[in-house]
């Protein structure tokens, strides 16, 4: 296996991009990544796209060829592949690109993620996202994604004493971080009071516990170590990119308060990278709902099962804490562009490790990104180092 480096990153604005269509959004991120890498375009040998549901958000399938086409690569005839795992689609694209380079099949590969959601109404957008859960035996019953995460939260509270205030703290932290992220959807601080007084979406989760569903795209360009040296003196390396799956429906899992896919993917990733959880200096985790971030702390091994809330209470995961989590603002405040999220997380970690994260810069040598699909039936954990 060859060592894989990230030589360029790009990200569109996240949010309600009324004046941009799917193609506009992807291309804005792609151009940024090419400029960042100093590539002309013809160097690209393959492309993987994470996109959850072009079919239902846009009635447009075959989006890999579409993106290659509008990226100006049509006449290069490169293989362009779309991959899907709900809102872990971006993480999957990253892993496919990583494997393509690590295996020696390709030298320069694009991993992209993109979703355009605002062409359908908010309710339809949530219904489509909810199809990352089990349509026939969960969503059919009225248990959409917020309700399913709410049931995880309820059990976590019952069992471990996590409170609604702990959940709100995650939201407050991520909003504060997003203020310094020019790409973020919500760039304003919120108080704990505001979060705790927002209406319930699915008890015990309130409006401020739920990430928005956003338009957005992100692109990273991967290259073999040898090729990377031609383009950059400061490559960031991917030291592991591991993926795991679990029962699709929450009700079938071993434990409702644990995402076993996260446990498995992260343990493999640590082993592969030769590090331990405590070695992680910065992390982007999948806070589609605030409870998911608290559970991620536990399942990634940042703390023991049941003690996730302590980390947020004690400020451990704040920007100036021991392990800053979601310096970008996370899904909650930067925005959740479904298939783009896994790549957007990678972009943030790369910027942090390169020292290019501006006012939200933390001191870090090793970073981790966790992207999950639905309630955690797919997890992708990627470890980066400079």
């Amino acid at each position, binding site marked *: 296996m060859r060592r894989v480096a990230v030589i360029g990153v790009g990200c569109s604005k996240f949010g309600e991009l009324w004046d941009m269509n799917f193609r506009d959004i992807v291309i804005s991120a792609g151009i940024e990544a090419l400029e960042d890498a100093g590539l002309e375009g013809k160097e690209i040998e393959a492309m993987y796209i994470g996109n959850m549901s072009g079919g239902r958000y846009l009635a447009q399938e075959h989006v890999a060829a579409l993106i290659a086409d509008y990226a100006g690569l049509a006449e290069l005839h490169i293989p362009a592949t779309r991959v899907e795992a709900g809102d872990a689609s971006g993480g999957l694209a990253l892993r496919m690109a990583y494997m393509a380079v690590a295996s020696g099949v390709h030298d320069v590969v694009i991993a992209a993620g993109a979703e355009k959601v605002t062409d359908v109404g908010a309710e339809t957008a949530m219904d489509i996202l*909810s199809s990352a859960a089990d349509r026939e035996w969960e969503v059919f*019953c*009225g248990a959409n994604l917020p309700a399913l995460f*709410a049931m995880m939260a*309820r059990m976590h509270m019952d069992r471990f004493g996590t409170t609604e205030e702990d959940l709100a703290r995650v939201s407050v932290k991520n909003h504060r971080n997003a203020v310094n992220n020019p790409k973020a959807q919500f760039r304003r601080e919120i108080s704990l009071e505001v979060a705790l007084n927002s209406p*319930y*979406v699915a008890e*015990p989760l309130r409006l401020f516990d739920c990430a928005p569903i956003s338009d957005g795209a992100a692109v990273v360009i991967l290259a073999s170590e040898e090729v990377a040296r031609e383009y950059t003196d400061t490559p960031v390396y991917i030291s592991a990119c591991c993926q795991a799956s679990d029962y699709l429906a929450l*009700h079938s899992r071993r434990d*409702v308060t644990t995402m076993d896919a996260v446990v498995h993917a992260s343990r493999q990733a640590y082993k592969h990278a030769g590090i331990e959880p405590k070695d992680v200096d910065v992390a982007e985790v999948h806070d589609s709902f605030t409870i998911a971030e608290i559970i991620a702390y536990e399942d990634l091994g940042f703390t023991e099962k049941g003690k996730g809330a302590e980390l947020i209470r004690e400020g451990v995961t704040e920007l100036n804490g021991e392990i800053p989590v979601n310096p970008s603002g996370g899904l909650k405040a930067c925005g959740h562009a479904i298939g783009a999220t896994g790549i957007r997380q990678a972009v943030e970690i790369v910027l942090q490790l390169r020292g290019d994260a501006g006012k939200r810069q933390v001191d870090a040598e090793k970073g981790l990104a966790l992207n999950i699909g639905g309630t955690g039936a797919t997890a992708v954990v990627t470890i980066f180092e400079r």
Partner: protein
Amino acid sequence: MLPRFWRKIRYRYNLVGTYCENCRTYYYPPRNLCPKCRRKSKIKEVQLSGKGKVISYSIVHDAPENFKMMKPYVVALIQLDEGPIITSQLVCKPEEVRVGMRVRAVFRKYGEEGESGIIYYGTKFVPDS
């Protein structure tokens, strides 16, 4: 969605699950293969008792389109006495529901494909005194 609903009517109207005779485990929703024994699975269909208890729940306020009229409604993870945990709606007042509460299965309407479409019936739960 019509054939898709019709196909599993038998399992929705009644809690017909599956049982693996090899490892003596019950499953609902039904499975073609036992995830514990895989190819060695000896799966047969069984009628489950419909009795169980709430292990977690949520009161949904921001309801999906099909459930707008029902809001606020209660969804729950219910552990059946035979073992499997299922996702279902609980017919009770939001303030009534508690973790650990005993419940039993009833036959109710889940929704419809608009006013002119088919009606989805299925199993919900009510508090069991």
